[in-house]
């Protein structure tokens, strides 16, 4: 579904991503882990068009997306959340998700001014979709609150609902468990699984919370200093000496043993 072929990106002299290649199959929950500064979020930013890759190519659903601007990539079906939450703070929870429906609400400027049947029809179906999504993430009771007044965990879930509103085929979740308490983390695990199992969405996940990663992932890729150092099933990654070294420093395996 998503093919990342040998992409590299430099910030000045720093190689943020170096020759990274990944393949994500449809229906997978694919996690990207790595120490801080490993290039995980940069990878997301390259995938969503915020930074074009210096070299390499990205194909999504068989079409090249690596030179497209962010809004075009979003329309191709890649939704995302942000590590540092980027909600529309002074809009309500409901409106935040409604903005996500933007490209699916098809009426013209004139329709909006004249309130044609097409306007009402599109707005009503958008509203239904939004309510469904708010139900799905469990925020329906909060619909009318301003996004900035939500708790941290709720804001993370709202970001997921908003990203879902663009009807993505692939959803990029950037540290969704950050700042969540254990109860919220458990709910998040269920939510991520439901996204895949009920909504048929492929998921690319960045997460530091290893318990979440190990619980939900089908495959895991490990980045360190912008390079891909391992890729495989959770069990294999847990045992991989290169990964342990990246996280705990050289010789860690021996001292753990």
């Amino acid at each position, binding site marked *: 579904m998503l093919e990342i072929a040998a992409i590299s990106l430099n910030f000045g002299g720093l190689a943020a991503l170096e020759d990274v290649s990944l393949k994500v199959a449809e229906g997978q929950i694919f996690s990207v882990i790595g120490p801080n500064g490993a290039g995980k979020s940069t990878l997301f930013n390259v995938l969503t068009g915020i930074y074009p890759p210096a070299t390499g190519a990205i194909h999504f659903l068989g079409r090249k997306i690596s030179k497209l601007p962010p809004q075009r990539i979003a329309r191709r079906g890649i939704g995302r959340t942000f590590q540092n939450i980027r909600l529309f703070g002074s809009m309500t929870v409901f409106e935040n998700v*409604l903005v996500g*429906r933007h490209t699916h609400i098809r009426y013209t400027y004139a329709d909006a001014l004249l309130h044609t049947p097409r306007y009402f029809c599109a707005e009503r179906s958008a509203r239904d979709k939004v309510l469904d999504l708010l139900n799905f993430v469990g925020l329906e009771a909060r619909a009318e609150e301003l996004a900035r007044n939500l708790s941290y965990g709720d804001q993370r879930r709202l970001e997921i609902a908003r990203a879902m509103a663009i009807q993505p085929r692939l959803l990029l979740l950037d540290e969704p468990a950050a700042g969540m308490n254990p109860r919220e983390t458990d709910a998040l695990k269920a939510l991520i699984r439901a996204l895949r199992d009920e909504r048929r969405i492929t998921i690319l996940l960045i997460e530091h919370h290893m318990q979440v990663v190990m619980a939900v992932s089908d495959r895991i890729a490990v980045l360190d200093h912008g390079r891909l150092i391992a890729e495989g099933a959770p069990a294999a990654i847990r045992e991989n000496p290169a990964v342990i070294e990246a996280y705990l420093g050289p010789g860690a395996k021996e001292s753990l043993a």
Partner: protein
Amino acid sequence: MKTKLLSILLLTLACASGAALCSAPRASWTLLPVLAVLFLCLTMRLPRTVRFTAGLGLLLIAIPFAGFTNTFLFELGIQIGIFSALALGLNVVVGMAGLLDLGYAAFFAIGAYTWAIFGSTQASYFMNGNFPLAGWPYFYLFAALAVLTAAITGILIGLPALRLRGDYLAVVTLGLGEVVRVLANNLDHPVNITNGPQGISPVERPPIPWLMDLLHIFNPDASPALGYALFFYLLVIAIIGLVVLINVRLDHSRFGRAWVAIREDEIAARAMGISLTRTKLFAFATGAAFSGAMGAVFAAKQRFISPESFTLLQSITILGMVILGGMGSIRGAILGAALVTLLNIEVLKSCSDFLNTLRQTGFVLDLGFFQYNFALLPSQLEPAKYERMIFGLILVLMMIFRPQGLIPEVRHRLELEKDD
């Protein structure tokens, strides 16, 4: 129950203040209650029908009726109306889309010149034809054209400014706004298009035989001046109504939501599939269009325009109205425009007149320990000249005590109960 009581109270107040205004149209104390009720209509949380009935009743019955004896009421209404439309237009660009535009008066100028050039003999300097175009459809035709040209200019000015945000955008729009004014100032040669700093005069007004006929039924010796005052008053109210309707409808559409989204967070908005280019250009064009329409009305109403009317100071005044009322708030923009206009042409002038009277009569203020003879008051002390200072002071105080504006933006309710 409480709502019902308040509604009845508001309607009663509207009737009472309206009657008072009609009974003594020239006394300034009768205008105050009317303004107060209009203020309540804007701000109170009451059913829309009640607020509309009270507000429109005053605007369309009481004020026109009183205006027959006191034309100043029309003048005041027209001024407030013109600035309300400008504030509403700028509110789309600055308040909703968050694009700081300091050259907004340029669109007003373009609308004004669009009609002024063809509604006077000015056009005959550079083209053949029978100018001024004085028949009845021409004004409306050119007002529509003014909307179009202003919107197109909005897009043209928006294009180079697209990649900029915040302060940088403000500086560029400021510059482009000045370009329009300087063009108006200098396009009197080699071909005389704008008549340069002398301005264009007289600009035709649309003929209003139907309104005069109507007026003559009530008052056989109504003058054309009164007729035009009433005409422009009603025209401005109609345009405001239209502008508010457009504003509200856009606000409730994907376009309005996209504007607020890019204001809040451009990166997140793009991740939602929103194109910054299209969204920003739509905002510039919409805001400019309102201004263009009012420009044409302004030219016809003043019968004289010159580049003087479209300075940077004008742009900043309009921005001040939006900030005072509350960024992104439709009712706020109207309130801001009304307050600033009232301050400029009514409150400060009254203060000046009052001080002048005291000065001339040699009134002595005697507090026992302190005595002051107003005849000694320097003649330079005239509040009407301190408009900018007081305006600035108000803005500074607003920023300290109520930065969100008098009527802050309210995001809409979901209105679940409406059709479930």
